[in-house]
Each structure stands twice: as structure tokens, then as C-alpha cells.
């Protein structure tokens, strides 16, 4: 497909011609949507961070070394995080600041062309919003947030990658999950899991579904039931072994059994719409705790964002499946033997669970408990490098986008894996799994990846 679409920023395209409409004028609409974003009532989610990020950058260049994409690209100037932010900032200064109107280019204000709007749109999908640059910024400027706000403006113009918008949030709203899986098919998958556990391990399990008032409502990325089924099988086995009161749920119109919320990546409206679906599930099933499966961005949305969107959500206890596993091991509700996972194992900190979610020690405690040889990837924890699956990228692959994912973020990650000498990369996030699956193939690494649940299940001791 490469070469079919007109290049508007670099050699890649994240937005199809049908969506970007590169030959259609959009500057005036962009500026109007931007104006709306600068209104504190309209931008009820991130007005202050947007303003401070636009106003306070002193161009100290601290973010450059922190950006994996910029570094891996060979430090191409168009990929510098400040260059990308300035593509939006110059419009802000030109149209919305007094200094920009008076001093123009002296303060970085400049009017932009239609072609530069196209470039800005594509550029907004060259940053995974991993916020490593924000973490190191001495001022507190957040280039990741500027990227997300740019995506929001573009969404107002109907511009968003079809993988996360039309085939993502819109499918989830229409079908109850982004995979368009009806209840019957979902239940069939659960039956398959039961049979598999019985055949492979001789374990008879019950998989509770739609149980009202359960201690734990576990919601996974619906894509995991297709792409990462081994993680789900492991999860079922662990939850069964723990003997706790838990349940999955089926999809319905107005509710969802899909934990993802791709709105987080590009639109507050979509974020809130999907959040409403999750809220309806909680209202219907009244669980004591919502457990987010191995999914990073969903944890961020449910744990940190929904409570300020829907007041009812403040009463919802949300934990990650990592926290649950950690609790189960600590409480002795499951017994594990690290000898059962003898290979060297390393762990990739997903941005959304680590830097954005604060879950640094839980996965390490789990992995040290269930694996004989745990090795740290460098750098890790707060300075972990994004794998390149974040921000929606893991499911974006049109044109030559996969090359972008693999030869930038992916290249760094492949090297880090090699340096650990690990044979298994433990992953706690669906998007990371989607990305690492490709990284391992693309860079021909002699390693395999596993979900945390798989490793825990493999280490289980039955008494």
C-alpha cells in the first residue's frame, strides 16, 4: 500500500486519505476548533495543562533525549517533541495570544498553510503520548498532552484513525465491544476456555458470567479473547484457584464487556461515551471491585479519569489484575512455585500502568514470586521506554505504519530485550502485547512474550 497515499509529513501515514482529506481546506475549521479547546468551559478535561504546556516551554531541550521516537529516528528534526508541539504552538501564538499578534515570529507565532495542517494532523500520530518527555521536563510542560489535545481538535474536524475511532469506539458503542463479538460468541469462547483447561490441565472450572454483587468484576480487552487467549486462560485458572467470588460480563447495547476506551487517545467525548458504558455495567452488576484486565490505558481511564467525569464513579473501587494477583499471592490464596518458570524473564513497564498508573512494584513482586530468574530491563519503572504500542498505535498498521512502529520505538525495545538475556518478556498490557508480538518477529528475537496471568498460572501449585 505504501506510496498510494500522498505524503503530507514524512514517509508514513496514520490517517487515510478518506479521513484526512488532504486536498480539502481545513485550516479555518481547525482554528475554530482550537479556539473551543482554549475555552475553560468547553475543555473541561485538560484546560489548565494545555495552557501551561503551550505557554511555559523555555526550549531547554531536556525532552529531546527522553523521546524514544526522536532518538530512534536518528534525531530527525521533524520528530523533536518541541518541533511537534510548536506546530500547534505557532497557531496558538498567532491567533490567541497578544504577544503573538504584536511580535509575531519573534515569539514563535506564525500563520500556517493548509499543507501544514495536514502535516500537523499526521504528526499528532507520531507520538504515543507516553509522557516520558513530561516526566523529565523541569517546568512541567507536557508535549504528550499537546499531542492529545491536537488529536482532540482534529476529532472535532472528523479526523481520527479509523482503527481507534470507527472500528474502535464506534464499534464498542454499537456492539458492546470493539471486536463486534456478540454474547453468544463470547460465551462460546468461555466454553472453549473451560474445555481447554480440562483437556490440557485436567482442571474443571466454572466461569461466572453476569453475576450480580460479585466481589470482583473482571473486564478484559475484548481483543484478548482472540489475540491473547493464553492470557485469558491463565487468568481464569488463577481466579479459579484462588477461590474468590468473581465474574465476567457479557456485552449489550448500552453496556460493554470490553475494558478498552480508545477515546482516551483522541477525544474527550468518546472517552466519556465509553466511560458511560462502563458505568452502566457497574450499575447493573454492582461489583465490590472492578478489576481491569491486562490493559494499560483502560486502567488509566477507570482508575484516574472516570471519577471526575461521572460522580457515581467515585464510589467504584478499581484495581488492576496485577494488584489482585499481588494480593492473592501475599494473602496465600494461591500458592506458586517459581521453579515452574525457570527461564530468565524480564518485564516491560507499560507507560499507562507505570508512569501514568504508579504500578511499579506489584508486577515485580508477582514476577519474583512466580519466576526463578527475573531480570530488569534497562531503563525501567518511571524511565521505562514506551514500546510504541501506546496511544492507539498497537492496532494501527495502514500504509507503512508498521515500519514506523518497528524501526523507531520497536528498535529500541528490541535492543533492551537483547541486553537482558531474557527468554521471556512478561507483559501486562494488551497494546504492549500487540506491539511486542510484532517486535519479536520483525527484529527476529529469540524470545517469547507472555502475559502476567500465563506466568502466574504456570507457577500455580494445587494442594
Amino acid at each position: 500500500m505504501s506510496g498510494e497515499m500522498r505524503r503530507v509529513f514524512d514517509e508514513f501515514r496514520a490517517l487515510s486519505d478518506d479521513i484526512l482529506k488532504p486536498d480539502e481546506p481545513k485550516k479555518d475549521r481547525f482554528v475554530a476548533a482550537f479556539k473551543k479547546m482554549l475555552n475553560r468551559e468547553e475543555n473541561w478535561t485538560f484546560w489548565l495543562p494545555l495552557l501551561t504546556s503551550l505557554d511555559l516551554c523555555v526550549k531547554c531541550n531536556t525532552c529531546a533525549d527522553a523521546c524514544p521516537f526522536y532518538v530512534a529516528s536518528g534525531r530527525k528534526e521533524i520528530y523533536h517533541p518541541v518541533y511537534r508541539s510548536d506546530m500547534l504552538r505557532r497557531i496558538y501564538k498567532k491567533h490567541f495570544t497578544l504577544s503573538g499578534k504584536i511580535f509575531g515570529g519573534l515569539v514563535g507565532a506564525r500563520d500556517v498553510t493548509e499543507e501544514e495542517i495536514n502535516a500537523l494532523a499526521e504528526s499528532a500520530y507520531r507520538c504515543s503520548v507516553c509522557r516520558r518527555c513530561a516526566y523529565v521536563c523541569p517546568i512541567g510542560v507536557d508535549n504528550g498532552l499537546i499531542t492529545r489535545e491536537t488529536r482532540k481538535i482534529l476529532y472535532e474536524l472528523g479526523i481520527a484513525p479509523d482503527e481507534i475511532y470507527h472500528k474502535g469506539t464506534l464499534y464498542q458503542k454499537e456492539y458492546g465491544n470493539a471486536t463486534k463479538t456478540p454474547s453468544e460468541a463470547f460465551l462460546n469462547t468461555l466454553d472453549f476456555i473451560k474445555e481447554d483447561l480440562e483437556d490440557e490441565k485436567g482442571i474443571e472450572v466454572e466461569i461466572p458470567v453476569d453475576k450480580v454483587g460479585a466481589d470482583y468484576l473482571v473486564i478484559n480487552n475484548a481483543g484478548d479473547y482472540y489475540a491473547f487467549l493464553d492470557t485469558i486462560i491463565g487468568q481464569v485458572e488463577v481466579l479459579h484457584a484462588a477461590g474468590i467470588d468473581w465474574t465476567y460480563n457479557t456485552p449489550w447495547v448500552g453496556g460493554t464487556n470490553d475494558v478498552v476506551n480508545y477515546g482516551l487517545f483522541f477525544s474527550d467525548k468518546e472517552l466519556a461515551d465509553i466511560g458511560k458504558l462502563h458505568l452502566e455495567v457497574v450499575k447493573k452488576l454492582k461489583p465490590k471491585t472492578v478489576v481491569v484486565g491486562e490493559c494499560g490505558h483502560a486502567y488509566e481511564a477507570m482508575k484516574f479519569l472516570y471519577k471526575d467525569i461521572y460522580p457515581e464513579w467515585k464510589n467504584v473501587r478499581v484495581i488492576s489484575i496485577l494488584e489482585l494477583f499481588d494480593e492473592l499471592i501475599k494473602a496465600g490464596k494461591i500458592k506458586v512455585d517459581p521453579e515452574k518458570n525457570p527461564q530468565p524473564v524480564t518485564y516491560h513497564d507499560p507507560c499507562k500502568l507505570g508512569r501514568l498508573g504508579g504500578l511499579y512494584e506489584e508486577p515485580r513482586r508477582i514476577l519474583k514470586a512466580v519466576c526463578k530468574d527475573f531480570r530488569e530491563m534497562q531503563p525501567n519503572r518511571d524511565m521505562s521506554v514506551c514500546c510504541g504500542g501506546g496511544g492507539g498505535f498497537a492496532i494501527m498498521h495502514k500504509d507503512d505504519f508498521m515500519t514506523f512502529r518497528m524501526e523507531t520505538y520497536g528498535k529500541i525495545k528490541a535492543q533492551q530485550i537483547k541486553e537482558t538475556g531474557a527468554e521471556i518478556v512478561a507483559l501486562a498490557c494488551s497494546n504492549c502485547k500487540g506491539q511486542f508480538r510484532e517486535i519479536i518477529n520483525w527484529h527476529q528475537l529469540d524470545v517469547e512474550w507472555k502475559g502476567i496471568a500465563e506466568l502466574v498460572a504456570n507457577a500455580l501449585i494445587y494442594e
Partner: protein
Amino acid sequence: MNGWEYFVGVVMPYIALSIFVIAAIYKAIRWATAPKNLDWELFPVPESKGKQIAEMLREIIVLYQVYSYNRKIWFQSLLLHYGLYALGIWLVLTVLGINIYYLGFLGALSVLVGSILLLLTRLGSSEMRLISNAVQYLNLLLLVVTSSLALYGDFFNERIRDYLLSVIYLKPEPEIFSGNSAFFAALFFIELFVLYLPLSSMVHFFAKYYTWDKIRWGGSDH
């Protein structure tokens, strides 16, 4: 006293201070009353208010983020910031009647050396040149010129307190320095710096409270 001295010594102090105060208060209120943004923390978040204050102090005292993640500009930045801190302390002490000449002198010298080094660093780095606008160079030049003139014009001499107090008591007496053109040149640039400070990205000296406390740390207890 000529018209220039009158303007710089009598009119400008109040223009500069008014703009400084109004702009700073406007921005502080605007940010303080911003609708609570969605939690957008970056972890680890200090677990208590005390730890947050300690982290903020670490930032102020050793510019820890710059030290940790951009060592190339740390020493220059530290010189500049320490110079500004020294000048702030000198100003307060002088008004209180304790004029430590060398505190002011060394403060200005530190600002001068720090800003020249930062200017050279910016000019010498292709990446920094790429992302810089004219205003980043002008900001540093303003610091270079202001601190140079303050040193050249002997701004920190023992008579400065009388002038500062006269401004505070709304009876400015620039005639104390009448005929000292170097002093008035220094004073003019200091006034320019003061009024410009809250209008520029240099406002981070207090904006950082909001970007860290309300955004990076989520504005809530952890």
C-alpha cells in the same frame, strides 16, 4: 535631573511594578481557579504534602530535574538561578537596612555568567537552535545586558536603599543618582526585566507550582 532620569527614576518603577503585580496576580488567579483537570499524574507522586514540599525545595535549590535529565545545561542554569535568588535576597535585606554589597554584586555576576553560558550553549547546540525562537535569545540577552549594566552602574552601592525606600514611600528621589547615566541605564533594564518577567515563559518561577502541584501530582493527596 533630566527627562530620561525622571522617566526611569520616577515613572517607570511604578509602571514596571504595576505590570508585574497585575500580570502575576492575573495569572495566579487564572491558574488557581482553573476547573479541576482530569487526573493526569506522573508517578511516583510524593505520598504526603511534606514530601511534595521537599521535592519542590529540591527543585528550587538544586534544579534537580535539570541535573538529572539535562546535565549539559545544569551548571549554567544553576549559576543563573542562584544569581537571581541572591538578588532577591539582597533586595529584601537592603530594604530592611542590611545592604550586603557583595551579595548583590555576586548575584548579578552569577546571572551574567550563567546567562552568557546559556546563550553560548544554545548557540552551540544545533538541536537547541532548531527549537529556539528569537524570544529565547532575547530573554538571555536581556539578562546579560541587565546584569552587566547593574555591575557597571554600581547598582548595589550604599545609597540604593534610600532610593528604594523613596519608591516604596511613593516619593521617588532619583536625584540621589542624578547625572549617573550608568545607574539609570541599569535601572531601566531592571525595570524592563521586572515588568517582562510575568509576561514571559520566565514566569515558571511560580507557574511551576501549578504545573507540578495541580497537574503532575494531580492536585490530590496520595
